[in-house]
Every structure is written in C-alpha cells, then in structure tokens.
C-alpha cells in the first residue's frame, strides 16, 4: 500500500479499508482497490488486497458472491458490519479525545 495517507497507521489497515469499502454494497477486487484509493488515498496492491480478502473471508466478516466471468464480488456480512461499527466507534472516540486535548492545549 502506498499513498498520501501513509501516516494513518492502523487507521489504514487493509482489512479496515476493505470493510469500509464494502459497507455501501458488494464490490469485486479491482472496484475495491479504486474505491479505497478514492476515499482514503491509499493505493493498495493486489497482493495486499487479496491477503486482506482471504483473512476477512476466513473470519466470516465478508463473503464471496457468485462470479461474474472472472470477477468475484464480495459483500460484508453482519459480523463484518458489527466489527466495522465497533472500529468506527473506537476511532471516533480517539478522534474526539484528540480534538478535545489539542483544542485545550492550543488555547492554553
């Protein structure tokens, strides 16, 4: 992975980006890559993408749909939605605390 958001650290974890991409509907591999690049600036390479897809699939957070020609779409499962929601909530909490503390520190 490589891009303008390289400093995101765990916020740019491939599995999290893939789950986020699938949150609004099923997508096949290349569509996920372009979507992730569009909303995060992170350019995933195919090796990274399929490493994440295989782990997510094994954990039951995404599921493959029927193949259209060679393209296989993936959709997020209920378990995946739950995990994503939990992650978003944790991240929001981090963001909220960070905002509060930076605002306090800078206004002092």
């Amino acid at each position, binding site marked *: 992975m490589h891009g303008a958001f390289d400093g995101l650290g765990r916020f740019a974890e491939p599995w999290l980006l893939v789950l986020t991409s699938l949150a609004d509907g099923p997508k096949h591999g290349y569509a996920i890559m372009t979507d992730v690049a569009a909303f995060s600036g992170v350019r995933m390479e*195919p090796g990274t993408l399929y490493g994440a897809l295989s782990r997510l699939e094994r954990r039951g957070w995404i599921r493959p749909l029927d193949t259209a020609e060679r393209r296989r779409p993936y959709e997020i499962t209920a378990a995946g939605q739950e995990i994503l929601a939990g992650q978003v909530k944790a991240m929001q909490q981090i963001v909220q605390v960070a905002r509060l503390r930076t605002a306090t520190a800078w206004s002092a």
Partner: protein
Amino acid sequence: MRPGLAGRLSRFLVGCHPRRWRERYREEMLDVLDQHHLTARTAASLAVSTVSTHLDPAWRTERLSLPRLRRAALISAVVAAPLALILGPVGYGMWQDSYWHPAADEPLETAAFAPHTGIMVTAFGEAIDGTDVMWDVTDLSRPRRLSQFEGGQPVALSPDGRTVATITYSGQAAIWNVTDPRRPVELTTLSNGDGSQLEELAFSPDGQILAAAHYDRIFLWDMASPARPRLLGTLDAPATAPEGGGPIPFSQQDLAFSPDGAILASTTGTDQVTLWNVTNPAHARRLAAIGGLGDFIQAFTFSPRGNLLAAVTYHSTVLVYSLADPARPARTATVRGLLTRAVFPSGLPRPSETPLCAACSGLGNYAVAFAPDGHTLTVVVDRAEMSANSGRDTIFDWPVTGSGALGSGTVAARDVADFQPVIAPGDRTVLGSPPGSHAWHAWPLP
C-alpha cells in the same frame, strides 16, 4: 522495472501461490492484474503474498514432515549442484575479468584516432595488460561507447578505422578487425621471432604498413591483408646511453609516421630521435639521428605538412626541427623549463615545488601536437609531482612559422588530466581523466 517485465513477473508470482490458494483466487487475481497498472511494487506485494500464503497453514495442502523436508532438500541439491558448478566458475571468471580489466574504471592511458571516420580506440589498465574500448567520437562532447575488448595496450588504429593493433599481455602485437566497431574480432597475432617485448605500434597514413617497435628493433609489417600481415623488413634501433653518460634506460619506444608516410620517426627511450626512410619499406634505411639532447625524448610529432618535427623531453624542453632536408634535420626552436613555468588557476593552492633533477622520476606527462593548419604548436603538461591531488595541466601554445621558428607563446591552465593527456586531432581538444574520475573527459583547448 519496465511495465512489461513487472506484468510478467506479477503473473508468474500469482502462479507461485499454494495450490489451494490458486484454485480459490487465481482467476479473479489475474482479472485484477489485467486492469491494474502493474509496477515493481505490484510484483513486490505479490512476492510477499506468495511467501505469507505458503507459511499460512490454512493454504497448505500437506503438512510439513521430516521426510518431506528431506526430499525437498535432496531435490534442491540435485538441481542446485550442477548450477553451482556452472555458474560458480562463470561468476568467478566475470569477477576476475572485471578486477583485471576494469575498462572505463581506470584513467585514460592511450588513445588512437581515425579522424575521418569518427572512430577512436582507448586503452586502460596496467602497462602489461589492458582493456580497449571503441568509441564513436563524431561529436567529442558526446562520445558513444561502441564496444570493449581485452586486447592490451598501447593501441594503434588504422586511418580507415577498420583495424586495431594492440600489445598483448605476452608482448606480441594482436590485430583486430573493427570494421564493425561494435563487434571487434581478433584476426591474428604477429610473431617477432624471439619473443621480445613489443613496446609501441603505429600505422602508416595509408594504413598499409604497421610499424612495431621492440627494445632494439622495429618490424615493418605489410597490412594489405590484416588477417595475414607479411613482414617487410626489420630496422635496427639499439637503445643507447644519453650523451654525457648515465645508464641505458629501460626501453621506451615511440613511433610516428610523417603525414606523407615517407618517414618513420622512432625513439629508443634515449635522447635520440631516429628518422627512417620508409618509402620502400622492404628496403627502409636510416636517414638521420637527432641526438645530443642530453635529455630523454618523451613525446614527438610531425607537423601537418611533414616539414617540421616537434619533441618534448623528460625535463620539459620543447625542440622543433626543420626537415626541409630530412637527412640533415636542423633545430629551429628550443624552449626550456616548461615545468617551472606551469601555471595554476587562481584560487587553487600552489603545490610545493619539487626540485628538478635527473634522478627525479615521473616529472611530467606530455602531449604535443600541431594545429591542423600547422600554424600553432601545443604542448599539454601534466605535472606528475602535483597530479596526485590536482590534475591541473598547463597548456602552452606557440605560433609556428613555416621555417619552424616559434613566436611568443601563451600559457593557460586547465583541470584536465590526472595522468597522460591526449590531444585529439583536428579540433583542439584534449582528453584526460581528471583526478578522482574514472572516466575520460574531452576539454576544448583555450
């Protein structure tokens, strides 16, 4: 990495994943690769994926066991052993080759030109060995390297640019066909009969004669058929002690043909230049000896019309001789002490002076040439005692009259060569390898 190569490598790496992984993801992965802009990063990510999936127990089809590992090790050894036997010596040979034949990683030592063809050959490396490089110098400011071969040095290039003569490791002359300068082909080696070390080579202006100087003899070869040179004659040119005494120096032959090819000039590492009438090379004869200089001749050249001969001595004296009567050369100009008149670009530290003495070795390297119109004589002096950290050369120019008298000269300094400077014919350019540089550069003369 080129996109085509990255693509091929990426597709190959997809096929290197475990079988179960391939059955599941191969087709869709290839579909992604078809749409994706493939780069070296793509291939790198797939290489990581290949390794990680092989290590992932979920994708292994069989469990690793000791017998399986042993079998894998045995198969690897069977495959690797012949490869190691073949590639090991090849790799060692290549390393040796690059170690002993460093090509352009060494300072320029010798260069020969075929001016009308735009071809130049340079030699690098130790005196007893050397790598030769063919160049297209149609534009000297943008030389193009054409090929490289292990011929040795010094080198001579026939005026038509089709034949190169080199001195091999064993001291013999090797003849190379460079009609296609990108693919030099060795044609033959010239035997001198007694195995003595060859010192210098020169082609006649028409390319028909190759003069090969040994310690005390010069062989003249008929080069009408470069693959089968024919010995035309032998000239006795014994090395003699300089006038005033002193030991006979180690032979340091130098050779040059006059522009019309009628005269061959040679030195034997002494204070003497011998002129030979080679109009009939099979019956060449001594014309005259220019001697009594009390100083070894380091470099000499004919004027474009062949009526003058200019020489530079070990202790930096410039001498000009008129060859109006080649049997009785007459000195027309003498300029002494070029080394002490060497100048330095302003702002650069002047090195401590080294007393000039007969016992001092390696005082300077010289290049001498007349301008194409014959009206200017140029000498480039590389001061050896300061060259280790400077490479600043002094360039002397004198106007020359038709009779060989020198007018008031000009002096300029350039950071040119850290070793032997070479003056290119025709366009007032000097070649050299500056200090710290492992390539030669072309410098326009002021």
